[in-house]
């Protein structure tokens, strides 16, 4: 019966050979699955041949059984190998693909934040981190807070330093003492009237002066700083300014104070900072400081005793300093804005340049 067994095994080998040919021609996993069903499924061509075993005797049966299992395993492996090969081919093909990611991407519309807002916030963040309160006041202000309490005498030429917009009296009244605030300094008075020392505030905000040319707008922005406590001195002002410019410009920059006059401080000084922009155009004369190496930032000084008194603070016990400078100019310097007018006309080609 050995011949019978050999014959049966040959049939199995024939089926295997047939599958091998088909597997090699298969091009996707679905075909391979169909082949698996066709040959190795419950009613598959190979599976059906298991029935031959029943016609064999002991040793023949044993030999056939061994051969059947071996061929079945081989056929499964054949299908599996082809499957792996197909996956590898597909992966290789996928990896060979090139997409041009430099084509313009469809994007959502990016909004933008005004350079003045961005600069004001940056200034606020620095002073908030130093423990300062941020305050603001009304834009339409009484002369008392805008001038009188800040030691601008009535009929004093110091009032000419700030050309003032006056406000028509409200109908039915004849109050002619309202102005558009010419500086943020009235907030100093308001802060003193509503707080007890120690007072540490900054007051960024909109201010107005009758000035309109290439470098002036009738509306612009200032930031005011005020610090009142026992034992506050010019040296403290200098230290605070140094910390401020360090945090704001991200570099340790020297501060220079020069004597000057503002009615609400005594002594008064202008403060300059070493130009942080000279590095922008290496090898050329800096177009910001014009080669002087310094940028004039603003005015400062020790709060005038008359101002302290107007704010209800005893100048013998407390001293304080104040400073102020323009936010618009700072924003122009930071962002290289050439004309102040651009800030307020709303051309989207200008605005959209500042997404942060």
């Amino acid at each position, binding site marked *: 019966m050995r011949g019978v067994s050999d014959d049966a095994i040959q049939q199995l080998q024939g089926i295997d050979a047939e599958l091998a040919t088909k597997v090699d021609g298969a091009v996707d996993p679905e075909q391979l699955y169909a082949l698996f069903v066709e040959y190795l499924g419950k009613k598959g061509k190979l599976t059906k041949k298991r029935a031959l075993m029943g016609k064999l005797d002991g040793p023949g049966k044993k030999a056939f059984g061994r051969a059947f299992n071996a061929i079945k395993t081989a056929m499964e492996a054949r299908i599996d190998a082809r499957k792996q090969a197909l996956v590898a081919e597909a992966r290789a093909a996928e990896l060979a693909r090139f997409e041009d990611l430099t084509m313009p991407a469809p994007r959502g*519309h990016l*909004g*933008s*934040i*005004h350079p*003045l*807002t961005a600069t004001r*916030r940056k200034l606020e963040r620095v002073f908030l981190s*130093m*423990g*300062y*309160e*941020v305050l*603001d006041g*009304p*834009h*339409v202000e*009484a002369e008392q*807070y805008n001038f009188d309490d800040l030691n601008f*005498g*009535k*009929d*004093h*030429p*110091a009032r000419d330093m700030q050309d003032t917009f*006056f*406000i*028509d009296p409200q*109908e039915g009244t004849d*109050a002619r003492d309202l102005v*558009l605030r010419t500086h943020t300094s009235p907030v100093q008075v308001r802060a003193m*009237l*509503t707080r007890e020392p120690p007072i540490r505030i900054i007051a960024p905000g*909109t201010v107005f002066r009758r000035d*309109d040319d290439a470098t002036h707008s*009738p*509306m612009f922005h200032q930031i005011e700083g005020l*610090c009142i406590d026992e*034992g506050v*001195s*010019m*040296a403290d002002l*200098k*230290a*605070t300014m140094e*910390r401020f410019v360090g945090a704001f410009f991200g570099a340790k920059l020297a501060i*220079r104070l*020069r*004597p000057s*006059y503002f*009615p609400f401080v005594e*002594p008064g000084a202008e403060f300059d900072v070493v130009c942080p922009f000279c590095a922008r155009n290496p090898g050329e004369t800096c177009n910001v400081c014009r080669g002087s190496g310094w940028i004039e930032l603003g005015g400062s000084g020790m709060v005038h*005793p008359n101002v302290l008194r107007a704010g209800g603070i005893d100048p013998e016990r407390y001293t304080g300093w104040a400073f102020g400078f323009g936010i618009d100019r700072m924003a122009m310097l930071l962002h290289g804005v050439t004309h102040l007018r651009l800030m*307020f006309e*709303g*051309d*989207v*080609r200008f*605005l959209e340049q500042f*997404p942060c």
Partner: protein
Amino acid sequence: MLISRAWLQSLLMPGRVAFPDEAGLSSLITGLGLEVEGVTQFGAGLEAVVVGVVRGKRVHPSADKLGLVEIDDGTRTVEVVCGAGNVPDVGGRIAFAPEGAELPGGFKIGARTIRGVESRGMICSEVELGIGVDGDGIMVLPEAWAPGDRLIDRVPGIVDTVYEVSVTPNRPDALGHIGVARDVATKLGCTLVVDPLADPEPVPNPKLVTLSAPERCGRYFGYAFEGAAVGPAPLWMRVRLHRLGLRSINSVVDITNYVLMEWGQPLHAFDRARLAEGRVVVRLATDGETMTALDGAELTLTDDDLVIADAERPQALAGVMGGADSGVAEGTTTLLLEGAWFAPRDVRRTARRHQISSDSSFRFERGADHGVGLARAVARAVQLIGDHTGARLVGGHYVRGEVPEQPTVVLRPARVDRVLGMAIPTDEARRILAGLEIEVDASDPDAWSCVIPTHRPDLGIEEDLIEELMRHHGLDALPSAPAMATGYGTQAPTALRDPAGALSRAEVDALVDAFVATGCHEFVGLAFACPETLAAVDGHSVPVGVTNPMRKQHGVLRTHLLPGMLDALALNTARHGRPVRLFEIGRTYAWDSPPTGTGPTESIDRRLPTERLRAGVLLSSGVIVAGGEDAGFSAQTVSAVLCDALARVGVQAHVRPTSDGDTVACLHPGVQAELWVGGAEPRRIGHVGRVHPDLSLRWDLPEGVDAFYGELELGALPPGTPTLMVGLPRFPATSRDLSLDTAQNLPAWTVVDALRHAASTLKPSAEDAPKLAPGDRTNADVEVLEDYRGKGIDPGRRALLLRLHYRAAERSVKDAEVQSVHDALVDAALSALRSTDPSVQRR
């Protein structure tokens, strides 16, 4: 104020300290608080110009109007061609620029042949030398000058550096060279030298001056002269005045100007022969009195104007300007010289009333010297008038009115350190104060008694003296020392609420970011608006008027953000064709309910207009230029932008139809809606819609371009609250679609609101009955799916398709129970809606 370096130098005692060079002096003056804003060099090239003697002159052989002049320039004699008519006779002296000289302005002198005669050099006029504006003829020099003398040696100050100094209003003393020199001398540690002058001692003549307003005129010197020969001022004086930008008039006027520049003291000279009775009366004008000022202006005076009158009528506006009728001119022989001190505030009022700002009023307003400086200046002028016009002083009178008391200020050396944070050694402090002519009595070493000189009216308190010490000691040595023992950052940052809104600054900043995140660009508009334009946008608010606007279009403060944003849209439209999406957060101003401030600032705050913080969004739609992009925005885009931005700051807003009678005038009456916030106190916070077509027309928007606008009143916003989590549902929802036949103007929001209202008021059949609730794939409990108006729908009607979601919290719901809840709810909602649309029904 223009300050001459040569003049300053002449006022300082040369000594062990070297006088600084041009740049050094500039930074020294600036360091004293007198900021140098500009520097001009004069006299470059004049080294070559010498004194020449005329040795012969004849007419040019081929040109009658030209002369040939033989000049001896000290080394040789040359012949030059000269066209001037005033060449002196043989022996006369002229200014000669030899061949090779280069005159100011870059004019090079070379040998030139003029009409066949070679000319080797030039006889110069003042214009050519850059020392005058007088063009008639060449300069004729004094006979005493030797040929070959260099002009720059003969006329000191002809080579000079002039600084443009910005003098702050507190420093009237620095409006003259002596004041600046005093500062410079103190800083350098050298001595100020002023020519010693004898006080003039004229024959007393009390008739010359009558003072009837002593409260306005503190001092008045009146000196009478006879026998004056008024001609040109001496060359050195004219050169100095020219360097300071003053035009030479005649010797007397030039002398008053010279003393003005030297002492900072305004003086005036009258032609005494033209004064009625030859005397002056210092008095208040009478209302309506008139006079003609020196500049020709006709002035109508008030009884608040101080005048210098003669026996009959005003001849000068005191401290402001002289009169045309009594000015000194060539031919004047008698003079009355005025040196006075007028009260600053009154001079300022008069100058402003008549809109005159003169060198004189500028100084009196700031406070001239009524003491030694005034007396010295008058003495100086008397001397110069005598020297240069030959006039004799024939009489004088000096009257005193009221002047401010000279304060004695106590300076505590310990306080200097306390205010400045740096110590100034006692002897240096004493030296500085002495240099400034402040008399110090230091018998109490802890409290010096300091007498303030009359030339420093700005010094009145201890801090003023500390500033003087600081100025002269310099700030370079100022240490950097935070004095606050507690250090920085210990106080928690608190952002105070903006008085104009209910939001904190942090919340407003968050709102800015939220708008940016929706793709809008932040715009900052001017606070000013045009009254007419504003009225077209906002007819309700009472705008705040600006009394002195810079232009008519800035006559009021904005009550509304829209006009400014439409200006920006129009500008963008005119410049390019890009779609516009802008937002602004800014204040508006109106006279309405007074701010109800409390506390120490209340009395002021109640009188101020209301300032509101508003947010506006403006989007454009339509193609602005051919081929341009249409962003396809609509009024609903604006709602979405506003609601999304508000959600980012913790405010849940929704859109409601405009309430009856609350239509907003700036928006299309049929394309507008309101923004509301719900919660415990539902309230309106803003409006959205399409900009009214009349406004599109007014702003000239192109055909087919529309603007959509939305605004929020930030003061009406509830404070943002932390968002509370809603539990995730554990059981599935079931939905029912609902198609309604409604009138077209029955807003979807009204329908949804009625359904929700019905859901919240219908009594549930059981505790765990299905309720209207957000669906599985949406956050909405009622979705509006479609507004259909096509085929099969009657005109004026529409089919509104909605989807309602139902859910029970603790179990799955059955179809039948959902249907019964749904039917009851829809029936209730429809009966409520019939009050608005009687024919609303299910389809």
